[in-house]
């Protein structure tokens, strides 16, 4: 998705991937308890088309540090403005994939929870289909689940998490396939979900796997974000 957006925004001075990486690094620092108290609007600014695109890619993770009450001041008006702009720029259309709708929904729900303005000032969370959770064969199912890794946080998307839990074994298979393919982002996303769902088969060696993914991903900021979430919220990954 990031690559497609980068093309849409043209070959500007700063590539979208760099904006995403910068914002992801800011979230990682906040999740680790390092750096200044987190404020989204310091990383992604209102009126910047790339900021909206980056927020679409990071989704709910852009607000993850606000879930750590001791590490962030509550979101302010500037933060709310950036998020509102992104939500307005990328509303899921009638042809949107279920993954896109779930991702959008996650950002809307997080905005209700952590940003000022009250529910009336935010879009309604759209209904997101979940037939794929029960119907997709494990390779496609696990790939889709990894794309929703930003929802693997305590207390959100609990319905989805409940429906994913019976397919933990399939997510474990997806983790293996992703590592084998050196798709570190997918591996980290699946590892994060496995950390959230619990009941991971002990023989998977999830903790060693997450350490391995961190080592092999060579500092990729989005991978680091998933791994930081798995460690901060679920204590997995060493």
């Amino acid at each position: 998705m990031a690559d497609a957006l980068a093309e849409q925004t043209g070959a500007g001075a700063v590539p979208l991937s760099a904006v995403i990486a910068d914002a992801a690094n800011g979230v990682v620092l906040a999740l680790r308890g390092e750096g200044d108290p987190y404020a989204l609007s310091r990383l992604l600014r209102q009126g910047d088309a790339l900021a909206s695109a980056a927020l679409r890619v990071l989704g709910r993770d852009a607000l993850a540090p606000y879930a750590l009450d001791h590490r962030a001041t509550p979101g302010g008006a500037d933060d709310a403005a950036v998020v509102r702009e992104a939500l307005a720029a990328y509303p899921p259309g009638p042809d949107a994939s279920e993954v896109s709708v779930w991702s959008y929904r996650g950002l809307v729900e997080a905005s209700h929870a952590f940003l000022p303005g009250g529910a009336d000032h935010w879009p309604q969370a759209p209904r997101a289909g979940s037939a794929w959770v029960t119907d997709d064969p494990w390779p496609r199912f696990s790939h889709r689940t990894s794309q929703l890794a930003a929802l693997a946080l305590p207390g959100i998307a609990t319905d989805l998490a409940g429906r994913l839990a019976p397919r933990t074994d399939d997510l474990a298979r997806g983790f293996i396939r992703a590592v084998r393919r050196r798709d570190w982002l997918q591996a980290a996303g699946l590892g994060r979900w496995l950390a959230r769902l619990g009941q991971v088969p002990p023989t998977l060696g999830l903790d060693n796997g997450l350490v391995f993914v961190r080592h092999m991903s060579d500092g990729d900021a989005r991978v680091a974000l998933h791994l930081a979430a798995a460690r901060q919220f679920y204590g997995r990954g060493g």
Partner: protein
Amino acid sequence: MTVTSAAASPALLHGIGDRALTWLDDHREHFRLTPEDRGTTRGVIERLKPIGELSVNLRVLFREGVAGSHQHTRAGRLLDFAWRELLDGGSVLAAFQHEEPFSSVPLEIYSTFHELGFRHPGLESAVEAGRRTLTWSALEMVPNRRLGVINSERQTGLVPREDFDRAVSRTWLGGLPEPWTVQYHIAYDITHTVFHLTNWGEKPDGIPPDIASYLALYLPAWIEDWADLEHWDLLGELLVVDTCLPRPALDAEIWERYAAAQCDSGAMPLHHGMPDGDAAEVFDIVHHPTMVAAFASAMAVSRAMSATR
């Protein structure tokens, strides 16, 4: 919970093996040891190995009872050819044992023929002389091959010198390591350990329950990956492992891809498509994946007709 895919049809499974056996029979002269091969120990071993694998294949075909009458006749002729023509009634093995008195290779080849009713008393006494030594059980070899040696001893009616369970615990699979660490060579270690645990698929319940559960959980990930990589030799071996599980998947989509990779002649490519080269060169590359295809087919047809899914 998992989403179970459809099982492959017995006709598709059977066709792969039928075509593979036809190709092996059509190319049987290429199994023969040349004078050059006989010149070195390595040369002999390199040629004996395929003959041993061919005999395993034919034994599986007879044992599982899945061959049609035409295929059965062809397999019987090929087996006689292997023993009489290729091994000179076992004399080739006995000669090798004379050169390498403490090698387990002749026994590993001979054991399948022994099970099928062929005998060479001279070889048996030569093997027994080697087996009496401490060297026999101290020979260094990879752990899954040690299982194969113990199996060969059992098949020829000998009491193994080593404990099978202890040998299992020394294999990669016996340790149930992280499944995402599996690479090409580890995958072959896995398949061979399963072949020996089950005596080439004869006893699926020979896989200890913890290993069977581990394989049921993770084997689909490896199968999917090596199917995508079009590594047909390894995929075929992994498909055999599937047939050895208590509830084989016999995944139709994977088997259809495997069948589509097979050449019209019956040869199964090693990796991607068929290689270039003269007939001997092509044989050297594709005889193994083609034998694996025959093995996988026989096992899958048998399990498709009997197993609980």
